[in-house]
């Protein structure tokens, strides 16, 4: 592989939520990669600090909602000396343009990265149509 590039610091993107929150705190938009094959849509999202049990993935009416709770890593007796990144919940919604087979959705969380596979429903898959010569 060619020389990989140097990583840059980026401020975490704060999400503006439509409704007011009942819980105080900042909400961040997780950075995602989305790509698609003929069978499935793949979504990879950075959600550092989210544990398996704190992640909810919800799909209804073509709206995919990702939300992850994060607990503060600092213990109570710790005094913060330097604070360069914010800590808060992750929340993001996507509208799916294609029909997804809800039964076969697969999600794994590894090293703070969510891997989500959304298999397309049978009827949404592209079909090769043969053109018959007359």
């Amino acid at each position, binding site marked *: 592989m060619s020389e*990989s*590039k*140097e*990583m*840059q*610091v*980026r*401020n975490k993107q704060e999400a503006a939520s439509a409704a007011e929150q009942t819980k105080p705190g*900042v909400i961040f938009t997780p*950075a*995602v*990669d*989305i*790509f*698609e*094959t003929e069978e499935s849509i*793949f979504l*990879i*999202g*950075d*959600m*550092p*600090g*989210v*544990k398996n049990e704190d992640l909810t993935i919800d799909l209804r009416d073509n709206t995919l909602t990702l939300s992850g709770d994060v607990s503060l*890593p*600092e*213990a109570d*007796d*710790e*005094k*913060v*000396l*330097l*604070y*360069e*990144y*914010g*800590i808060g919940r992750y929340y993001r919604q996507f509208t799916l343009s294609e029909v997804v087979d809800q039964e076969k959705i697969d999600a794994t*969380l590894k*090293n*703070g*990265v969510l891997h989500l596979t959304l298999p397309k429903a049978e009827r949404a898959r592209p079909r090769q149509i043969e053109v018959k010569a007359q």
Partner: protein
Amino acid sequence: MIARRFFNTPAFGWKSSFSELERIRQEMERLSKGVEEEEARPGRMAGVFPALNLSENKENYYVRAELPGLETEDLSIQADGKSLSISGEIKPQPGETVKYHRRERQTGKFSRIIDLPDAIDLDKIVAGLNNGILTVTLPKSETHKPRQITVS
């Protein structure tokens, strides 16, 4: 020249100028409170990846960084008497052949060195990578720990 008042505006009266001062005082208080609250938000950045949060308690210093997707074997942490260096590489996920709809996640190499706050017990440094968050625990050296002094 004699200053003359044209309108009986209360703002010119003595009593009301005190209330004006009071209003300014309250405003200042509100502002400074706002600044304090602002402190809970990320402050100055060093401009080098990864962004670090540093905290301390009586026993240890804690350095934390968000490094989603980083594998333990791709991370290297070094500490000498003066500084702590964190470097590594977050590898891209699949091959480059797929067509991305969105590409927001960052991958690549990083390296950052921070100066250690005074006297660290180098032998007892512990680092853990959990759910994409790196925590380096730097125990304060015995001689530099605050000691409770009893008054006899």
